[in-house]
């Protein structure tokens, strides 16, 4: 049993370190939405996307014509990517901060408390924001795929399948939340049985 708790502590420490790394990376990641807004202000978004090294062309695709570039929905694309990106970075930071608190409580052997139930609920909300951000970014990437016949392979490269993945994440976290809150209710009732 002691051996198991030792490995549990090691696992928690590893996840906390990863969460810290993601918090730093997501903080830096706010530069990407700003970059998209810069493209929007600068104009010629389609050309900037096409010239970007993270933008990969489908085999057989041709350089976009002048009319394609002219009809490219610059601001819808920029806003979808910038807002989606900002929400995603914010949600990632919120998720990791909450997860870190939850894991620290577990490491301190504070398994069943209302504070932990509240933290799991926050994880569900953060994951819901992930679904929203993934939807916006997937919408933006759909625009480049449709107009420019290629796909983003860099940061903020989410597609519709990522939206489905994050929805599964919401369902899994919600199930954990419901079970955990029920367990807390049973424990409270047990504590108040004399």
């Amino acid at each position, binding site marked *: 049993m002691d051996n198991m708790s030792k490995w549990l502590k090691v696992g928690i420490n590893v996840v906390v370190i990863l969460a810290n790394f993601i918090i730093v990376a997501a903080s830096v990641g706010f530069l990407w939405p700003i970059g998209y807004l810069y493209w929007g202000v600068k104009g010629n978004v389609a050309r900037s996307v096409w010239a970007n090294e993270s933008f990969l062309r489908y085999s057989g695709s041709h350089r976009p014509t002048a009319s394609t570039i002219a009809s490219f929905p610059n601001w819808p694309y920029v806003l979808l990517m910038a807002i989606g990106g900002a929400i995603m970075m914010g949600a990632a930071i919120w998720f990791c901060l909450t997860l870190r608190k939850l894991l620290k409580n577990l490491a301190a052997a504070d398994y069943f408390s209302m504070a932990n139930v509240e933290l799991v609920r926050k994880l569900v909300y953060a994951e819901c924001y992930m679904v929203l951000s993934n939807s916006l970014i997937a919408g933006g990437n759909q625009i480049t795929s449709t107009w420019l016949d290629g796909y983003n392979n860099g940061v903020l490269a989410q597609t519709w399948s990522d939206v489905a993945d994050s929805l599964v994440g919401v369902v899994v976290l919600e199930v954990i939340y419901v079970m955990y809150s029920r367990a807390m209710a049973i424990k*409270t*009732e047990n504590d*108040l*049985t*004399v």
Partner: protein
Amino acid sequence: MVKLTLNVVMAERNISSQELAAAIDITPANLSILKTGKAKAIRFSTLEKICRVLDCQPGDILKYVPDTAEH
């Protein structure tokens, strides 16, 4: 709802919380939960001990009060 009138019976028997807690072998904190009405449930074993020590019937310490909504 069911209310516990334990404090009334305790006052009639002139027994303190500490004495009762020691006599029925529960913690003062748990006895406080009973007295303040925070308890969600009471075990038959606890009820039996209380009745034995206070020399009363379960009905003396449990009282049914209809909820206001039922009127």
